[in-house]
């Protein structure tokens, strides 16, 4: 197979770790000016913060400095203390107020995170969760990269009903376990053959394909012997085998493409939850590197999950702010700790957005080619499941218009899923309806 010019670019030395990374080096391997006429990648990220955000009111009716929302009224953005980190990104971010998933309403404040990226009606008509927005895009366009999607979290796995540890779902009832160990993520992305020679890898894949083939045959035979209802049930197993076959096929094809040579220098892959800032940035860096090397274009990142009492996330606020109590509790306290906590989270997210923006791509930069949602599935201390805090960033080159706070409150109410429809269409995944959507969100993507 003939190599495309951009693949050669990918082979250039890439270094991880934001601080260490020098710009000139980056330019050497970025997407050249519409390199060889090839279209630039269109990407999507959904990231999640838990326990809602701080939304205090002031007595005199002015906007509170520690309110998560950067300004009080709909219109052009100004940035209060909480949202300061996004001030330099003004023309790349929008805030959307008044959005939520109808499907999460009945789930209770700490459970609606399950459906943040899916909009599934789990408390009503659907018994299980459903396909997430990133996976729908991956289904259509995932074949263009080595990995169809990247599913990250900070606790790993799938979590249980009502306390998901992943945002991504392959389809009804089929959550995709998130990866949370930086070293493991790095290896899966950039060292997938685990040191084996390419010939050995191909031989292994060929064998795996033959075995899967036989498994498929056997399962089909079993299916034909089942009752009608049960045949349908077995279909999901066959579907999984088929998906694995496709993965093997795809991995084989990609063995003909050189792996990007990514150095771990500057990346602390052994970082622990004890250092929340370094850990969070490491996750963002890995995501950045995956995009940078065009290893994938669709990703979710569950920065925090609800009900994390079993993990170190529970102590994050303690490590970051010296707050004496569980991270969850901070959401229920009035004073500025909550605002400072939001501000810390904003800093980390802004760090990621800025890395994307500082990386040239085509005529603009990576951020312009990447639509990023950042938010939570409940607004504030009372665990309500309405009016999520939602920020959308990037994707300017994909048709997004930023710089404003939009209100969808009251009569202007539309489902959050409308945003997903717009995002899907922006990444070449033609979509008319997603979950309970009623149309596109023309306010930010005319």
């Amino acid at each position, binding site marked *: 197979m003939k190599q495309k010019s951009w693949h050669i670019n990918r082979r250039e030395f890439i270094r991880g770790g934001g601080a260490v990374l020098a710009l000139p080096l980056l330019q050497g391997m970025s997407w050249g000016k519409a390199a060889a006429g090839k279209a630039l990648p269109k990407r999507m990220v959904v990231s999640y913060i838990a326990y809602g955000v701080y939304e205090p009111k002031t007595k005199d009716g002015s906007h509170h400095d520690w309110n998560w929302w950067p300004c009080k009224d709909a219109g052009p953005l100004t940035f209060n203390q909480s949202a300061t980190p996004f001030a330099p990104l003004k023309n790349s971010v929008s805030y959307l107020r008044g959005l939520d998933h*109808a499907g999460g*309403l*009945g789930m209770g404040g700490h459970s609606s995170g399950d459906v943040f990226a899916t909009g599934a009606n789990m*408390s009503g008509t659907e*018994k*299980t969760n459903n396909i997430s927005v990133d996976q729908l895009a991956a289904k259509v366009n995932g074949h263009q990269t080595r990995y169809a999607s990247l599913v990250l979290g900070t606790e790993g*796995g*799938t*979590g*249980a*009903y009502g306390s998901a540890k992943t945002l991504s779902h*392959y*389809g*009804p*009832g*089929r*959550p*995709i*376990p998130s990866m949370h160990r930086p070293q493991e993520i790095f290896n899966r992305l950039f060292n997938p053959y685990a040191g084996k020679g390419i010939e050995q890898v191909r031989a292994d894949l060929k*064998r795996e394909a*033959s*075995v899967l083939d*036989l*498994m498929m*045959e*056997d*399962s089909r*035979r*079993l*299916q034909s*012997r*089942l*009752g009608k*209802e*049960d045949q349908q*049930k*077995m279909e*999901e*197993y066959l*579907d*999984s*085998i088929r*998906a*694995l076959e496709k*993965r093997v096929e795809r991995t084989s094809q990609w063995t003909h493409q050189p792996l990007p040579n990514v150095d771990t220098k500057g990346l602390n892959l*052994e970082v*622990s939850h*004890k250092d929340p800032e370094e850990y969070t940035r490491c996750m963002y860096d890995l995501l950045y590197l995956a995009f940078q090397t065009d290893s994938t274009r669709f990703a979710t990142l569950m920065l925090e999950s609800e*009900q994390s*009492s079993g993990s*170190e996330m529970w*102590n994050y606020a303690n490590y970051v702010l010296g707050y*004496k109590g*569980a991270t*969850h*509790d901070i959401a229920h306290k009035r004073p500025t700790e909550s605002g400072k906590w939001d501000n810390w989270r904003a800093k980390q997210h802004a760090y990621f957005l800025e890395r994307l923006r500082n990386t040239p791509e085509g005529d603009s930069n990576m951020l312009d080619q990447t639509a990023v949602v950042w938010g939570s599935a409940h607004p504030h201390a*009372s*665990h309500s*499941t*309405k009016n999520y805090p939602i920020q959308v960033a990037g994707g300017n080159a994909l048709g997004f218009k930023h710089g404003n706070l939009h209100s969808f409150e009251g009569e202007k109410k539309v489902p959050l899923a409308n945003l997903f429809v717009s995002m899907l269409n922006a990444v070449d995944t033609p979509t008319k309806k997603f979950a309970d959507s009623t149309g596109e969100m023309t306010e930010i993507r005319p």
Partner: protein
Amino acid sequence: MLNPKFLKFFLSVATLPLLILLGVGEVNAGTSFKKDVAPFFEAYCVKCHGPDKSKGKISLHTLDGDLAAGRELERWEDILEMLESGEMPPEDEAQPNEAERMIIADWINRGLHDYVKKASKVAVATTTRRLTNFEYQNTMRDLLGFELELTKDLPIDPDKPYHFNNTAQMMMIGPDQLVRYKEAARKAMASAIVDLGKPKIHRFSSKWEHGKSGKGGLSQAEIGVYQGPGVGRKTVGLKSWPQTGEFRIRVKASGNFPPGFKEVPLRLVMGTSLRHDSGAGIYQEVGTVHLRNTSDNPEEFEFRGRIENIPVQPASKHRNKILPPSITITAQNIFDNGELNDHRKSGFDASWSVQAPRVILESLEFEAPVAEVWPPEHHTRILFESPLRNTKTGEYAYEVIKRFMTRAFRRPVAKDEVDHFYRIYKIYDAEFDTLEQAMRETLAMVLISPQFLYHAVIDDAAATKQYVLASRLSYFLWGSMPDKELFDLAASGKLNDPAVIETQTRRLLADKRAVGFVENFTSQWLSIAKMKTVNINRDLFPRFLYTVHLGERRGQEQLFRPTIRDYMHEETVGFVGELIRNNASVMNIVDSSFAYLNEPLAVHYGVGGVEGLKLRAVPIKPGHRLGGLLTQGSVLVGNSTGSAPHPIYRAVWLREAILGDKVKPPPAEVPALSDSVGDSADEAVSIKNLLALHRNKESCYDCHVRLDPWGIPFERYSAIGKYQPLVPKDKVRVRGFNHKADKTFADYQAYLKSIYTEEVDATSRVPHGPAVDGMMKLKKYLLKERKDEIAENVIRRLMTYSIGRELTYRDRFEVKKLLKLAEEDGYKLQDMIVSVCQSSIFTGTKSKEE
């Protein structure tokens, strides 16, 4: 409005349709939808459930009344249940008289029955479902012959409060899950099939001298209950261990008992080093011994486990030094008399380490792999000894695969199935040098095949059905594959005999594998898992959890030891287990003459004379205010806020778990309790008043008027599950416990006295029932008027769990039959389980009455 007599009469009427069903008599054959049913709905229901309003999203005016057409029968069953229970119409609406009600209920009941009879051949709901993680883990254990932790990396089963996680519809498999299954299967086979040739044995030992004095007034060999910011311990670091295999640890230990103490528990855990200061560390429990011998008579104790299950501390860099991977064995003194937090300024402190009994640990020896025979039994179970192995390797491999598949698929396998996996074997055989390697890969594929991963009924042949039944029994009562006896019975075709089912059910329940069933079933049925994550207000309840009193985790719960909440979980599971074991009446779940306790629990509840950590049945008196499930910590803590009782959670629990009602979650438009009554979070408004305010909202009223009364009688039981008849005064914000001001135990009690000053009001009138004041009266009422509902609920729960699907109107008549049997039998729980296993729903045969 209230008329208990009427209710009682009505309840007896409600059993009439059952009599009809059993052929006792025919009544009201002339009832018709048009003439009777539709006008009844018009008169009593349509006002709220009709074209204008459809409360609870239910409307009746569109029902067409032709039950024989088989449409909307679930709705008809719901209506029937409302009429039977008398829950609808609500008390403040016009009520039909008993005769009217009976006519309608009977008409629906007969319509349903006729349809079920006629349509019983039509395929029922999906029954094919994958193994739950619980079943997967147990099946692997019994298939391989040793316990390997395999489900850690599998996606968690979809848990839903008050539902079982084995419901067929929800049990799905996606590609990522399949990948994880494959990893687990390969891991299992890597352990099960060993490489030939004697392995290298890894040994390590440590000694401590009891004669020499050590730190803090203890000897060098002694472990006190407390050390630094955590539980007292001794550690041994392992530098080398095999990749796979069984390990053995031998310890020489005894106890040092201050006057008044007779027993001290020694627990061994293994994993990373446990950092009590920062809270980091993961471990696997190896075992616990309860020492009663003294140092003049040290005894040797042996622990065993699989090395694969032990978390390893990965290699790390420390000041330019590379530290290799390691495993730490931690020996702990987990003594707990329930009072370690008492009489202390904050948390429990070092003085306990001399005042409480100590473990004397003189030596510890580690050895792995244990190789009394090599290759081990679990290897030869798969790669059995045979001369064929070297002469006709192909034939041998075929037989190996066939034997393994037969056990893995829980039934005899067809030739084409074996041929198929033999072909897979040939692919691997070409690639690998040894039979062991090729067989590991091949059998791993057997373990990701749908025949292994799913419960599936492949055809209707009588021979297959016997094996299906064998699996049903074993997965119900063990959560695992059938054993040899069940297989043999299935092979001989005797298993569907009701007498054989009875013998087998009782045998399975008596086996230690049934412990897993009781635990899994009970915790899901009663939805008690959430109890462990309720955030306990340590300002109000400073002595409930053992807290760390120094260091960076000061004030937080002590880690790495069993806690009172673990014991509460065991209490509930053990209680239900005790009822099954003794074939006691299921009504014990409402009230009983015993509690299931150990010392910390007994101290918590105020029951005297219970010593040691082992839980057991303890006789109780009315003055203890215990008995049954309703007053158990797991229920009360799980359904509290951590600061206060939560009567709504408790009401929902009672109705769902005990009475078997389905309580709908609050609709989305309804504000939360505190929002609807204004900014009350900072002031303590008595919960009764809070609820009253909440009910004033029209949107909340309809549901809460039927819900709240069930939770109010729990009000004398605190957020930590203790009897506590006093509460803070209305509209007063209580001060938190202050360990500087409230130093001693007496100060603590004075503190409690100062905040809990008002008699709590625990009186409410249950819907369609009498006024009930407190727990005792509530229990009395339930046992007097609600026995049938309680028994039917337990039958339905057992049935649902046993077949892995929700019950529908089709199952109604079989359930009623079992209820009748149970009633005649005095509601004995073990008998109830037997009758579930004999039922037509479980065995998949048709009931005789149909």
